[in-house]
């Protein structure tokens, strides 16, 4: 796999020497640590886009692992900016890392393209950040509205992770449920080191909820769904995006997934268009893995950046202006900045039918952030 990815980078670099423009794209993502699964998807999405540049554009990727610490991401960014500032940087999706990278991006005036969901990322008045994944404010709104407006549930129990991802999403969920008149009857944070989730399920059941809402990382999401099925919890489960990742769903039997729904930006393996199916095929062939929403979001973001290069954005400042003003029809959705760098404004709800591990998109929410 490593050799294949190295070859992909090289192949991109020597694609066509006759072409005029060549750009260097640092891809600084977490390939180890707590977000390795999602970071690998982010890298793969970027690499796949860079391997298919628009005609007349030549690009090569420089991949660096940002691990799990903000200082590693900062070091990787400073290294990537020396010598010479690239036209843009694919920056870590891990909230604490991208937040640490933002001041450097602004200081060096280089656009940072990310798929982090953390709300705070685009609230720093930093004109150099562009987020191609809907923020927690969008996807959590979709999750809460699906629970209340579609499922007609009014007594949610929320289980969330005590990480920045978990707590950030929990705040948005709690506020939106309360606004919708469905104040949570139970909520509890779970550390990532906790193994058995039966205790929190037991306590949640005692509170008398009518739906279980999850904001957990991938292993905990799979585990709690399995344990809920095992104890016969008998409540609908509406999860965060983790269970929409094929690698997470693969941990469970289809019958354990029956009736489980999740918010996400997209679900590439669910299909939808010939272009999306081509993306899924290319991804499987290149990486021998199933693409998830993160891979598709980063693919779309990188494709938009390459389209901007093709239309003449040859410098970081020109790229910033292009990304801030362009609209781009990606495979997952249409991307357009809201003036703060939020490019993605749609979310979907996907559900499993209990017969397979491929979810079906059952609801789509567009321009949710415009309604806030």
């Amino acid at each position: 796999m490593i050799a294949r990815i190295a070859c992909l980078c090289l192949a991109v670099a020597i694609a066509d020497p006759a072409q005029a423009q060549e750009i260097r794209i640092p891809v600084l993502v977490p390939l180890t640590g707590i977000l390795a699964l999602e970071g690998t998807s982010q890298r793969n999405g970027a690499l796949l886009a860079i391997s298919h540049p628009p005609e007349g554009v030549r690009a090569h990727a420089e991949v660096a692992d940002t691990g799990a610490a903000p200082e590693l991401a900062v070091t990787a960014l400073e290294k990537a900016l020396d010598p010479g500032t690239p036209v843009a940087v694919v920056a870590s999706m891990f909230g604490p890392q991208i937040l640490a990278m933002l001041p450097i991006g602004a200081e060096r005036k280089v656009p940072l393209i990310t798929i982090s969901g953390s709300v705070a990322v685009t609230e720093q008045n930093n004109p150099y950040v562009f987020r191609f994944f809907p923020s927690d404010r969008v996807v959590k709104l979709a999750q809460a509205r699906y629970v209340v407006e579609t499922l007609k549930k009014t007594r949610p129990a929320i289980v969330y992770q005590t990480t920045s991802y978990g707590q950030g999403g929990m705040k948005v969920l709690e506020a939106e449920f309360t606004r919708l008149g469905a104040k949570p009857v139970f909520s509890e944070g779970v550390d990532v080191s906790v193994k058995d989730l039966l205790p929190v399920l037991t306590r949640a059941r005692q509170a008398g909820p009518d739906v279980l809402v999850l904001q957990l990382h991938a292993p905990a999401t799979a585990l709690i769904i399995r344990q809920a099925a095992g104890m016969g919890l008998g409540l609908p489960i509406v999860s965060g995006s983790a269970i929409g990742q094929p690698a997470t769903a693969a941990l469970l039997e289809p019958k354990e997934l029956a009736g489980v729904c999740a918010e996400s930006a997209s679900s590439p393996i669910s299909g939808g268009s010939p272009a999306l199916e081509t993306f899924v095929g290319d991804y499987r062939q290149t990486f021998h893995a199933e693409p998830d929403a993160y891979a598709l979001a980063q693919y779309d973001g990188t494709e938009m950046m390459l389209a901007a290069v093709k239309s003449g954005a040859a410098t970081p400042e020109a790229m910033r202006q292009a990304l801030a003003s362009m609209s781009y029809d990606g495979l997952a959705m249409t991307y357009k900045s809201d003036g703060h760098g939020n490019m993605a404004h749609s979310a979907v709800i996907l559900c499993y039918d209990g017969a397979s591990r491929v979810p079906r998109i059952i609801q789509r929410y567009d321009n949710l952030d415009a309604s806030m």
Partner: protein
Amino acid sequence: MLTILQLALNGLALGAAYALVALGFVLVLNATGAVNFAQGDLVMAGGYAAAALATALPVPGLALLPIVMGAMALLGIAVSALAYFPLMRRPATAVFVSTIAIGLVLQNAALSLFGPEPRTAPPIWDSEPIRWGGLTLSHQALAVIAVAALLVCGQGWLLARTRLGRSLRATAQDREMAAALGIPIHAMVALSFALAAALAGAAGALLANQFFVTPTAGGALILKAYIAVVIGGWGSLAGAVMGALLVGLFETVVAAEVSYTAASALLYAALLLILLVRPQGLFGEAAGRRA
């Protein structure tokens, strides 16, 4: 009442798996006088070994367990050769650092070989859980308790009843004297690493079915083993087992009554109380020294 029984069963299963980790931790501690910080990552390696073997050999987890333990024992010997023997005459802190480094190598090796996706190992045996009244008796939970109890008893028998065990204990208690008596102390230390890694491998295979395994899963386990060993008594094998069971019960029964955060706080409070009232731990200090 049924809920408490259910939680207690889960807690015992979790504690039994932690006990295997803690036992291995104590074995190396007693043999070398140093803490093996790679023990948690060895558990992770055992989980991946079981998951990988299951794809090649579609047999029940029980049949895979001896293979996993054998492979892990060899890995344990390799760990001793890389992380302990070159530094055995250095201060114990050097071994701490080298075992941390080995742990990082294992994490990155797992990431390179298996990718970042969580994996699951096969169940010890595959069948529907037993439903009795409102109680769900998971075969896996019962099997974890049974296998761990067997391994703990086997370990106790080996150390107490065999010549090899007496040599291991002699090496742990006084290495110079053991060497003077003709006991091959280097072989005994390597064997301690092998046994510790085999137990870690068994714990990894047992835990990875219920709780999955990821490259970074070992970090939390070493902390739990450390707490178990401090509660039970630094160097005490029986204490490590009791400490691990206590940690497992706090994580399930107590957490269900209060919350995970409160249960963790109570566990650490109990730990501090034990250190205050009985610094040698519940089962005293059998051998070794605090490192």
